[in-house]
Each structure stands twice: as structure tokens, then as C-alpha cells.
């Protein structure tokens, strides 16, 4: 396989291309997670988003998530692409595809991937609200890392 399983891109993401990357004859299940730009968050209207990444480290951390999944769910195969730059409402920010012989692992590994992305991958979202703008992850949700490293327990379901 010449193509990369872990990518940060500036162009729209094609879901089918990620599905193709994880297709195997031994698969019986493929799950995908598609993160899209939502218009309303807690009563505030988003106009558009900007994502910024520390690209080489972000790719490394995506690959690290893939390695973690390989340890926890040995028969799975994972591909992740995250888009950066300007994204409008309903645009796709991230796609995670997981294939597995059996479905349970495909769901679990997929959900694990998005939780880890929100913990360790150096990507930042700037929300452009109807009235103002802000980098998410600092002012709104004051998270700090007392242990030096991001922790599984920090994750919220958003």
C-alpha cells in the first residue's frame, strides 16, 4: 500500500477513499466516523471554522493512535484523515475508517480513535461565531495538563 493511512489535508475529504484504504478480504465490518461542522453549539451559531495543525507531529500522533488500536484490537485496520484550513457548516473535518472481521471491534476502535484525537493530536479549532471568534481549547474549555501529558479522563463527549 503506497497511500498513507494517516493524513492532514487542506482539501475536502472523500469518505470513499478512506473506506478503500481499509478494505480487506478478511473484513466483515467497516465503521466510519465523519466529524462535520455543526451550526449550533449551546445556543451559539457558528458561521465557519478554521483548523490549524502542527502537521508533522499531528501525522505522527495519528499513527500512534493507529498503533494503540493495533495493540488493543489486533485484527483491525485504521485510516484517519483530518482536514485543516477554512471549513463551512456541514463540511467534513475528520474521517476515521476502521475495518475488522467482526463488528464489535470496528465500533470500539473507531470510538477510541476519535477520543484520542481530541486528546493528543496537535490540531486547533478557531470558532467564528455569529458574534465574535475564539480558539477552542483555551478560553472556553480551560483544560490544563497537570501530569505533563494529556489524559484519557479529560475527554468530554462533544
Amino acid at each position, binding site marked *: 500500500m503506497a497511500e498513507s493511512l494517516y493524513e492532514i489535508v487542506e482539501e475536502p475529504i472523500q469518505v470513499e477513499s478512506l473506506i478503500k484504504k481499509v478494505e480487506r478480504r478478511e473484513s466483515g465490518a467497516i465503521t466510519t466516523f465523519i466529524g462535520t461542522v455543526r451550526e449550533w453549539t449551546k445556543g451559539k451559531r457558528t458561521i465557519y471554522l478554521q483548523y490549524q495543525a502542527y502537521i508533522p507531529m499531528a501525522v505522527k500522533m495519528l499513527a500512534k493512535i493507529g498503533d494503540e488500536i493495533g495493540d488493543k484490537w489486533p485484527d483491525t485496520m485504521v485510516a484517519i484523515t483530518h482536514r485543516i484550513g477554512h471549513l463551512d457548516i456541514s463540511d467534513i473535518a475528520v474521517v476515521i475508517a476502521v475495518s475488522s472481521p467482526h463488528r464489535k471491534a470496528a465500533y470500539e476502535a473507531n470510538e477510541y480513535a476519535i477520543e484520542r484525537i481530541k486528546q493528543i493530536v496537535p490540531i486547533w479549532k478557531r470558532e467564528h461565531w455569529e458574534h465574535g471568534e475564539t480558539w477552542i481549547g483555551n478560553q472556553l474549555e480551560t483544560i490544563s495538563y497537570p501530569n505533563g501529558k*494529556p489524559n484519557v479522563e479529560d475527554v468530554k463527549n462533544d
Partner: protein
Amino acid sequence: MIKVLLFAHLQEKLGKDQLDIETNQIKISELKHKLKDQYYLNELDGVMTAINEEYATDEDVVKSGDTVAFIPPVSGG
């Protein structure tokens, strides 16, 4: 020389995405202290650090040729 990369609100506050620090070696905690003093970057509290694209702690030491990145709480996904 140590290369320092800045992202998100840190980058915005400083008006640049990169700094070069002329030193042979320095502990991350000292580097943070230095930048807080020099650029009023109090935002460096509660910010993670990466050395050469791997997460590091305030106790780690960087040497000339290393790249340090300050990683505010991430918000991808």
C-alpha cells in the same frame, strides 16, 4: 540555537509562528519562564510541550538543534 514553534492563540498573541532561541541547552521550565518574561506569554502556563514532535515535560532539557513546540489544549476532531 533552539527553534520554538507557536500555535493557535500563542501564535496570534506573538504575531509570529516561530522563534529562534540562542542557547546551547535549556530546561523546558526555564525556557517557558524566559518566554513569559520576554514576551509576556503568561498563556504558557497550562500549555503542553513537544520536543522534536514528541510530548515532553517541563523537566526535559532541549539542546541546540532541537525543535520545541508549545501545544495549547488541542481541539481537533
